[in-house]
């Protein structure tokens, strides 16, 4: 009688990738495996360039997630909002699919009269509060991101504060890219407490390349390993939908 977990990748970056696979393709791949990809673009005073912006939106769109571009200062509030919104979106998707099974193929939430919609929403709310959540945080530490890392850290503590107020369990893992020896490096293994991050973060050095695509590909496999380890249901989207009966 266990529920599956919602799985998200939260990518925090300030610009365009310049190395390895196309991150938009990698996000699409993640989605196929039931992992939502959210992206937060962090700005200084200057605005982000057109290409960076397009990539950020593209990754979130093909990753079935939410994207948001913000100034470093607003990061805390944004990180938790984006994560929440993506959760609701995913759960709504799940509930909508169930609805279609019950009501027939062409029915979506919007086709229900407003009165009925409320009841569906309550189910989504309930799920959002109780579902198990796994968030893999993927942080770009190349070049100009370096100065923003203290703010990123704060924002992640804040995220853990928000999510740990839920009834459901959370697990977080943190990866940075580029890593010292490879495209991506794990700095924090799955844990319910992001606070453990404070000791590891200062050690980071930042390099020149921005291998966003390879980093996403790596991140996905990390979920997969875990999944088979924990012997949760395999197969496409059923990671969450499954199980409880």
């Amino acid at each position, binding site marked *: 009688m266990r529920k599956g977990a919602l799985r998200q990748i939260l990518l925090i970056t300030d610009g365009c990738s310049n190395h390895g696979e196309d991150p938009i393709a990698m996000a699409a791949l993640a989605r196929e495996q039931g992992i939502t990809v959210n992206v937060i673009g962090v700005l200084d005073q200057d605005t982000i360039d057109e290409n960076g912006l397009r990539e950020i939106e593209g990754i979130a769109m093909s990753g079935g997630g939410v994207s*948001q*571009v*913000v100034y470093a200062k*607003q990061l*805390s*509030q*944004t990180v938790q*909002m984006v994560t*929440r919104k993506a959760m*609701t979106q995913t759960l*709504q998707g799940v509930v909508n699919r169930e609805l279609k099974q019950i009501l027939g193929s062409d029915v979506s*939430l*919007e086709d229900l*009269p*407003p*009165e009925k*919609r*409320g009841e*569906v*929403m*309550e189910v*989504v*709310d309930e799920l959002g*509060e109780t579902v198990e959540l796994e968030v893999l945080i993927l942080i770009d530490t190349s070049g100009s991101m370096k100065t923003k890392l203290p703010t990123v850290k704060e924002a992640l503590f*804040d995220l853990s*504060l*928000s*999510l*740990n*107020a*839920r*009834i459901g369990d959370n697990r977080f893992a943190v990866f940075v890219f580029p890593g010292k020896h490879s495209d991506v490096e794990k700095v924090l293994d799955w844990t319910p407490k992001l606070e453990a991050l404070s000791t590891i973060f200062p050690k980071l050095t930042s390099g020149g390349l921005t291998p966003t695509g390879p980093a996403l590909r790596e991140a996905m496999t990390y979920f997969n390993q875990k999944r088979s380890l924990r012997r949760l249901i395999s197969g496409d989207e059923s990671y969450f939908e499954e199980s409880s009966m």
Partner: protein
Amino acid sequence: MMNHTLKNHLCNLRAGTVITGKWHKHGYKIIKRLGKGANGVVYLAESTKELVALKLSDNSTAITSEVNVLRRFSKVQGVALGPSLLDVDDWRDPYTNQVIPFYVMEYIKGDEFFTFIRKRGKEWIVILVLQLLSALEKLHKEGWVFGDLKPENLLVAGPAPTIRLLDVGGTTLQGRAIKEFTEFYDRGYWGIGSRKAEPSYDLFAVAMIMIHACYPTRFEKKGDGRRQLMSMIQADATLRKYQSVLIKAINGEYKQVAEMKRDLIAAIHHDSYMPRQKTNERTRTAGRHKKRKKRSGLVETTMIVMALLFIYVLYIYGKVLQ
């Protein structure tokens, strides 16, 4: 703070545009825009009967959640916690042919909290806060926490100034995680507590509203949040009067609204009857004075009531004679 995905033209509907619901077929004529928030846009509009506030959003999820809360509130008997809900429907937007969900609520005419204080004076702060506490008390009793409590969500309606809560989007069942919040009023941001929906979460925000009312320019957290707030309370003459209440609210020591309300009332009376004294002396004697004050307050009230009754009787008598 968030980017608005809401279509630009939905935020700029022309006066005279009629929004007709696809399900219930009621029509609403737009008069002007009242405000725009993260989750949608609110217009003043006219139904066949009255002026109403109409909220449109292409975020169906947000609209549905808010409607759920408003519905609940309308079941709380006799008290107006939020604007009352009048209609929920979808509108087929003729420009894009998209279906836009909307809901219609009671139009609350009034000033925003800080605007009202600026116009009418600082002595209103505690009075409005007391009213706010009473509303919160009812809300908490129903098992909810307001969550996104901030002055922008408080309107003071007339003619007898009465505080009303707007924007119920953050209202959360107790024991769950706060759904929506604004950093400045959030105890999590200040490093002073969790984001669990419990009555003390709202009471922290109430304390922050009082502090903000005395420091009109918004400030940010620097270092130790608790210490910073404490020294700001000390540094302001108005806040100093209520410091013991504020400190307890900030530290999450009030588990129920009633406790904070009681202490605040005591502090108000204490302050207006007592000559200025050193703080430590004041707190030591506070208990005794409180009681005495209450009794003399009672006598006063009785006399006023008697006088009013007398006038009223005279008035009725006059009417009858006519």
